[in-house]
């Protein structure tokens, strides 16, 4: 699965973008277009997930997966914080900000992972989109508590922060689209499928080209990254992702959904969380948290992580359990 996955156009376009940036080409996707595609991807993921749940109905598995996601998002920042403080030698504020990113999720890693799993015959269940939505914000709360953000450091009132967190554009769009998909069902989805379903994979290619450019440019500007933090940006997804997969299999989820839970746990946010952190913890360095999540963890997950989580879910853990 690994090499085959690497040679798919979605991943190749990411590599093309990264190569162009490393070679200092002036290739650039207009930001309005990239932002538009990112909104499109969230609408599409939400609608398709909601449409599938409308078919299957609410199941026991869905509840279990949702609870697992909630717990992971709340708790994953804790060991991450400890590692970032000790092995990473970060101060409290920066460690807390980074930890929040790793507890939260990356929508595009999930989207790419789902496509790759589907291609390998391990499509995750539709309700995993709801789990994705559920996992976006709890980690932010844990991160802020870890930073003791209520201190005089921040200008933003407490209420304002929770507001920022739960009404972050990407959270609203994902959840809202999921609900619309749920209400509309397969019937309502049919006439809009030519926009929100069929072209999804192609749109992802364009977006990943841009992600390759952005990630590589950040990596070249890696003022804020040290060897220690870069190594943690590889270790954290592996740890969190493995935990996610194992939890999924143990809870009895199918292999695809378990792999998807691993992808969610192993991915790090670079849309919702940075926007909140810039406001809530202005003293934390955006070069650091975006450098780790966007320039190291994202490419790692895309090229290696996804394949690894799928492999653990399908082969390794079932074998270990016997």
């Amino acid at each position, binding site marked *: 699965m690994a090499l085959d996955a690497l040679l798919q156009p979605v991943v190749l376009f990411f590599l093309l973008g990264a190569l162009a940036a490393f070679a200092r080409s002036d290739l650039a996707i207009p*930001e309005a277009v*990239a*932002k538009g595609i990112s909104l499109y991807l969230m609408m599409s993921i939400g609608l398709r997930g909601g449409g599938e749940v409308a078919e299957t109905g609410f199941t026991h598995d869905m509840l279990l997966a949702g609870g697992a996601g909630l717990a992971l998002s709340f708790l994953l920042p804790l060991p991450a914080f400890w590692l970032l403080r000790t092995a990473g030698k970060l101060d409290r504020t920066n460690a807390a900000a980074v930890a929040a990113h790793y507890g939260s999720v990356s929508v595009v890693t999930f989207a790419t992972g789902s496509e790759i799993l589907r291609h390998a015959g391990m499509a995750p269940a539709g309700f995993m989109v709801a789990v994705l939505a559920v996992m976006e914000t709890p980690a932010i709360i844990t991160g802020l508590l870890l930073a003791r953000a209520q201190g005089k450091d921040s*200008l933003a009132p407490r209420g304002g922060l929770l507001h920022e967190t739960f009404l972050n554009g990407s959270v609203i769009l994902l959840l809202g689209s999921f609900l619309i998909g749920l209400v509309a069902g397969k019937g309502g989805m049919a006439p809009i499928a030519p926009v929100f379903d069929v072209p999804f994979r192609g749109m992802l290619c364009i977006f990943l080209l841009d992600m390759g450019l*952005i990630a590589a440019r950040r990596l070249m500007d890696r003022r804020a990254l040290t060897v220690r933090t870069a190594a943690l940006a590889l270790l954290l997804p592996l740890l969190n992702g493995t935990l996610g997969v194992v939890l999924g299999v143990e809870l009895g989820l199918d292999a695809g959904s378990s792999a998807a839970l691993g992808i969610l746990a192993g991915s790090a946010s*670079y*849309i919702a969380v940075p926007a909140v952190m*810039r406001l809530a913890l202005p*003293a934390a360095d955006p070069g650091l948290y975006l450098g780790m999540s966007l320039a190291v963890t994202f490419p790692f997950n895309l090229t290696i992580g996804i394949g690894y989580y799928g492999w653990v879910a399908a082969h390794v853990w079932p074998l270990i359990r016997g």
Partner: protein
Amino acid sequence: MTTTTHRRRIEVLADEPLIPVIIRLAAEAGIIHYTLLPTLGGAGAHGRWRDDQLSGATAKVMFLAVTGPEHADAFIDRLAPLLESHHLMLMSSDVEVVRSRKFD
């Protein structure tokens, strides 16, 4: 000839998520009229940046307000302690305006 009056032009460059905070601080200093201008990129003590709207966390916006000296000073006093920690850039310069009452 139209009479013009002396006023202060305050410009603050700040990360997009911080703009609501800047607007609030300005209002607390008595400045309620302002204009926001886009940027493309730059470089400073905290490194280079380009306006990638992906997360918006590091895209910057220029806040511009024309106002009288008291409000200007009050605003600068409020901002001064944040300049370093929040990676802001502040500039103050002189302008002439018509309809001075509008820019007190």
